[in-house]
């Protein structure tokens, strides 16, 4: 099976990313000549089914945010394909669209940002922020616009009376709700959530996560949920994709991935999740060395210098993503052969 992930695409799939690459040139020296490239996303494969939440996890700098933004075409992909199942136009290749064509697709895919302070224009009132998508796409005007904004604010749990205020008058959680209202305004199908709660306090995180779940239910949304907090991802995701240095290493249903990981990197990640029960303390898996450099990735499997199961083949051959079990893919030469530890299910 050469491309098992893609073989899944069908009418129940909303987004399909194949071999996505995003390289950034590294410039150095006096004349700013290119001295290398950062391979932030280096051949990412994944698909998102309609109505599901796909968690995209990985440690800082593994390219998960870049992947989310490249899928949204906020950054230009270096290579690969991004196919989106548009409700009107059917399957479209986003990477081939020009600005004008993208504008027709954008209402169906929106993004929620990590930083609730930077993502709202400080010079605009809440009304102007939330109404911007409606005004740009000429959906509503006048009193109708006013009513729509009021309704959107109610939906995200804010009082419509606040719409004449400026973002600085709100707390982080409230501001994130404003950002969610803006993303919802055009009734999108797909929402890329770019670490939407990592800038918030834990108690506020729970509120926002619950809001996102309720909205998903009420508006039949599909989420691509980018995050590094494994417990948040476990809570909200139907399936989880794990990235390491710009590549997908494992993709499976949430429970399968957490309880029976099939990639040594996922095993190490799971061992790092803090456990609320002191009796369940077990030794974390220490990964030697540093995260592989995205400028000069190691040969073969990017993870092999840190992998305790590594064999000779790992440093020479790039492991393909293969299906270990139904709906469970892993990019490890020994996937399925190793006995890896997940987290213990709690009831």
């Amino acid at each position, binding site marked *: 099976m050469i491309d098992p992930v893609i073989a899944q695409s069908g009418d129940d799939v909303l987004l399909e990313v194949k071999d996505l690459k995003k390289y950034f040139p590294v410039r150095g020296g006096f004349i700013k000549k290119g001295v290398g490239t950062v391979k932030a996303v280096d051949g990412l494969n994944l698909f998102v089914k309609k109505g599901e939440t796909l968690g995209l996890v990985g440690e800082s700098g593994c390219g998960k945010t870049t992947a989310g*933004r490249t899928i*949204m075409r*906020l950054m230009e992909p270096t290579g690969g394909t991004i196919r989106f199942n548009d409700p009107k136009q059917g399957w479209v290749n986003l990477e081939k669209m020009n600005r004008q064509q*993208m*504008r027709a697709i*954008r*209402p169906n*895919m*929106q*993004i929620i*940002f*990590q*930083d609730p302070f*930077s*993502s*709202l*224009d*400080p*010079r*605009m009132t809440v009304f102007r922020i939330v109404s*911007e*998508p409606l005004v*740009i*796409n000429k959906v509503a005007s006048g009193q109708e616009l006013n009513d729509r904004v009021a309704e959107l604010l*109610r*939906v*995200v*749990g*804010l*009082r419509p009376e*606040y719409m*004449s*205020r*400026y973002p*600085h*008058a*709100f*707390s982080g*959680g*409230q501001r994130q*709700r404003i*950002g969610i209202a*803006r993303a919802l305004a*055009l009734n999108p199908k797909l929402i890329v959530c770019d670490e939407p709660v990592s800038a918030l306090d834990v108690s506020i995180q729970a509120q926002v996560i*619950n*809001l996102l*779940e*309720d*909205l998903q*239910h*009420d508006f039949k949304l599909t989420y691509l949920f980018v995050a590094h907090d494994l417990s948040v991802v476990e809570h909200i995701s139907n399936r989880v994709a794990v990235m390491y240095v710009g590549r997908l290493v494992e993709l499976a249903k949430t429970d399968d991935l957490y309880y029976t990981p099939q990639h040594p990197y996922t095993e190490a990640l799971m061992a790092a999740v803090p456990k609320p029960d002191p009796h369940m303390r077990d030794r974390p898996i220490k990964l030697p060395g540093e995260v592989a450099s995205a400028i000069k990735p190691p040969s073969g499997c990017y993870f092999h210098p840190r992998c305790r199961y590594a064999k000779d083949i790992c440093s020479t051959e790039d492991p393909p993503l293969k299906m270990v079990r139904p709906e469970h893919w892993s990019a490890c030469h020994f996937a399925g052969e190793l006995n890896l530890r997940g987290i213990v299910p709690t009831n």
Partner: protein
Amino acid sequence: MTSTTSTVLKPSPSALSNDKSISQWGMAWRRLRRHRLAMIGLVILAVIVVSSLAADWIAPYTFDDIDLGRTYAPVMSQGDVGKPLHYLGTDGLGRDVFTRLLYAGRVSLGVALSVTILVTIIGVVVGAFSGYFGGVVDTVLMRFTDVMLTLPDLPLLLILSSSLRQFVALQDALGDALGVVIMIIVLTLFGWMFDARLVRGQSLSLRTREFVDASRSLGASQARIVFSHIVPNALAPIIVSATLGFGGVILSESALSFLGFGIMPPTPTWGNMLNDARSAPLQYLFVQALSPGFCIFLTVLSINFVGDGLRDALDPRLKM
């Protein structure tokens, strides 16, 4: 799953304190009002502007009322029978100095205002697009800006203002306003570069903010992003720069008019009144030179006070 509509959040304490949250401009105005020098400057400016605008009613004479029988009349001297006093005396052609000061203010302030507005618009557009688009657009626009900055402006101002005057078509189209229009064009041409660089810097940092990405993902056009997100957020330094630039334009206009390349008599400006004062006999020189000089001094000083006040008031790091 609970219904989302039933969970309405409590407002944060800062939002509760007043019904409508004050905009950043409201806060800036509050801070500006506490800046004593800026308020003094504002008042002086207001007096100068209002009296210039009301010159038709305030001025005792008309600005080109020549009375060769009363040249260099002293301060507070009598005019013709039934005519008002010459408060600041008369000049070498017997024209009332006070009257000419008022009308000159109108021209000088008008030129300065026009130039400042034009310079700001050009600077903002060039800078905002340059910074937002980056790449080739940025390189082309900024190198052009650099070239303009390296040109020695005074000699070019002199050449341009005298050569533009030669065009018959311009003379026919503009008539008496020719000198003023040329002055505005020339000063605008050499004034926009600093604003462009200032706005470019702001634009470069603003375009990486997430609200710009948000707007792009909503399908906003590039022009919309530049004019509704980049420019409003870069406005504070632009306003300060425009205020201080206004004073600079008055000085440049005076300098050009003083050198005889600016606005030509009989239209009075503070600069060409200074020029006229040069030919006054020594005993009259002080009054003749000081009256327009003091007007320039007072206006520019007030403007700079206001600019300083605005700089402090618009700095978001300073809380009240």
